[in-house]
């Protein structure tokens, strides 16, 4: 039985993949470097999934409740309390070092014990920032909790006194505090967080751009390999076997496509494991979208391989293409928000459409069939077809052929 029409392109692609997996430098560049960059960016811009903020705290209370409020706030996983002296706080506010400071007044303990609303002031620049407002909400909730405990203790004391059963000093407060502690340890409602698609964390925003950029980089640099084959004679040897130009380009495209798809799947799978930015559905959508995106960039790589006469030329074209497309196409920002000439330029790049589709799926939770994602898929498919046609038209086995 003679092999089918795809046998030779598939064998070529298999050879490309074997070479890729045996090239440690290529693996490092394709798989490890993007991850390092993701971690660096997440570290720089703060990519933790849970909210966390610092509460700047000035305690003027003459009693113990002010310190207790600070301790309870600090015990929350979302909040770290930094206690400041009043003058230091004012200086920092003036210098905009901090924009939100919680100031517990002098009579805080006394008012709390008497059942009066305790004096707490929030000093802030502007509206105190989003973090400041959230911190203030946490502080208000803790103060309400403390007021509630004090109120319960007072009512219990009143009831016992009314029944002629006076309790030793401090006994009621201790027992009520223990009951509240137990209630906090075993809350009546257990809240579980579950990702449902749309995400706004830095990692979810930056990851598509970085994966797109590195995939373009790795795949376009791969064009040098085909050019190198001209130099070392394997290309001519291949053509002497009866391999057609179409089979050669198809096989090279398939091999590049396989490399790119592995790279995309690997990076997104690690991102899922590390940052939990996907659900099974969005991960499937991202991979399906990745198939189209990698198909497009693999065809772009063929164009580079066809245009370049030397490996150095291929590398420079690849570097230039990647840099220009990444900068214009929004690998470091959301290019869909651009207006005017910048928007037109962005739309001329592969990265814009790949990033837009991935961001729609990851951060907005859009399905593949949504009009926005479908548009991206159609444009990327067009890029793949046009690039393949250009490569087929200009590819030459030897530079000296006429």
């Amino acid at each position, binding site marked *: *039985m*003679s*092999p089918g029409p795809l*046998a*030779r392109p598939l*064998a*070529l692609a*298999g*050879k490309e993949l*074997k*070479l890729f997996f*045996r*090239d440690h430098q290529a693996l490092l560049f394709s798989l490890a470097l993007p991850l390092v960059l993701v971690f660096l960016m997440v570290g720089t811009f703060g990519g933790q999934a849970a909210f966390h903020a610092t509460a700047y705290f000035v305690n003027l209370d003459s009693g113990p409740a002010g310190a207790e409020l600070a301790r309870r706030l600090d015990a929350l996983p979302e909040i770290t309390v930094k206690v400041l002296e009043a003058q230091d706080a004012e200086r920092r506010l003036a210098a905009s070092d901090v924009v939100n400071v919680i100031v517990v007044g002098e009579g805080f303990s006394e008012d709390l014990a008497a059942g009066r609303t305790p004096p707490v002031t929030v000093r802030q620049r502007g509206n105190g920032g989003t973090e400041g407002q959230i911190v203030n909400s946490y502080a208000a909730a803790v103060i309400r909790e403390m007021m509630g405990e004090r109120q319960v203790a007072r009512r219990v004391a009143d009831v016992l006194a009314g029944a002629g059963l006076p309790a030793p000093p401090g006994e009621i407060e201790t027992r009520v505090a223990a009951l509240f502690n137990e209630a906090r340890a075993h809350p009546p409602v257990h809240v579980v967080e579950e990702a449902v698609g749309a995400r706004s964390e830095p990692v979810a925003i930056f990851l598509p751009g970085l994966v797109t950029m590195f995939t373009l980089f790795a795949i376009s640099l791969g064009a040098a390999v085909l050019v190198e084959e001209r130099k*070392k*004679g*394997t290309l*001519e*040897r*291949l*053509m*002497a*076997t*009866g*391999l057609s130009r179409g089979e050669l380009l198809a096989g090279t495209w398939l091999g590049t496509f396989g490399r790119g798809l592995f790279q995309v799947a690997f990076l997104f799978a690690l991102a899922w494991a590390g940052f939990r930015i996907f659900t099974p559905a969005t991960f499937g959508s991202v991979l399906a979208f990745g198939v189209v995106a990698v198909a497009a960039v693999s065809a772009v790589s063929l164009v580079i391989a066809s245009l370049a006469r030397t490996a150095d030329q291929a590398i420079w074209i690849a570097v230039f293409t990647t840099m220009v497309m990444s900068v214009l196409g929004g690998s470091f920002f959301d290019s869909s928000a651009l207006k005017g000439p910048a928007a037109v330029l962005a739309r001329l790049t592969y990265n814009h459409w790949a990033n837009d589709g991935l961001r729609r799926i990851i951060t907005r939770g859009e399905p593949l069939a949504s009009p926005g994602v479908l548009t991206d898929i159609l444009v990327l498919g067009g890029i793949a077809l046009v690039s393949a046609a250009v490569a087929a038209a200009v590819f030459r*086995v*030897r530079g*000296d*052929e*006429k």
Partner: protein
Amino acid sequence: MADAEFVVVRDLRKVFNGHTAVDGVSFTIERGEIFGLLGPNGAGKTTTIRMMSTTLPISAGDVTVAGHSVRRKPAAVRRHIGVCPQELALYLELTALDNLVFFGRMRGLSRREAAAQAMENLELVGLTDRARQPVAKFSGGMKRRVNLAIALMNRPELLFLDEPTVGVDPQSRNHIFDTIEGLRDGGMTVLYTTHYMEEADRLCRRIAIMDGGRVIALDTPHNLKARYGDPERVTLEDVFLRLTGRRLRDAG
């Protein structure tokens, strides 16, 4: 097609950007013959081989192999030929077996057929025990033998050997000679180019000497040597230098 005209090269020409690299070359090769193509650098040997092996378009003239025209039926010609280029045209990162299987599959063999043929060829060139090692770890001579083994993956009737012994040790060179002679004895036709005159003298039944894109002499080694004196005393290198001169040639 008579065995005497298994390969017919007729008035072959190649012009690159106005420069004539091959200028009206004609010769025939008999089936089962080792035919030497000699010449200084830039004489047009490799260009001739590339046209004969279908990888470079012919400007004028034609070549027929087993009755098939290179210009009109290159696909048919490719089925009959194997090419062992001057360069080590293989993948150093892959194993010897992987290289052979890959090129076998490019020749249209199934994976199983390619693997069987690859092992047979590796045995022929004495590399069976190194089949699964990356070629990058091989010596120069072993790489040359893999290069030759790849060219035999389709069991060609006509084998092009373009300087197959460059940079190899005497043992490997001798092994390659034995292999080539074995192939000839099995009926294979070989077109052999080399700069080593003693190789051509030992292996080739007839030799064409090229210079300036033309064939300037074509005969058996004995007859070529006889033109310039006692064939037992005159060497092929003497003949070569007399015909092509002593001027240095730096062109590739």
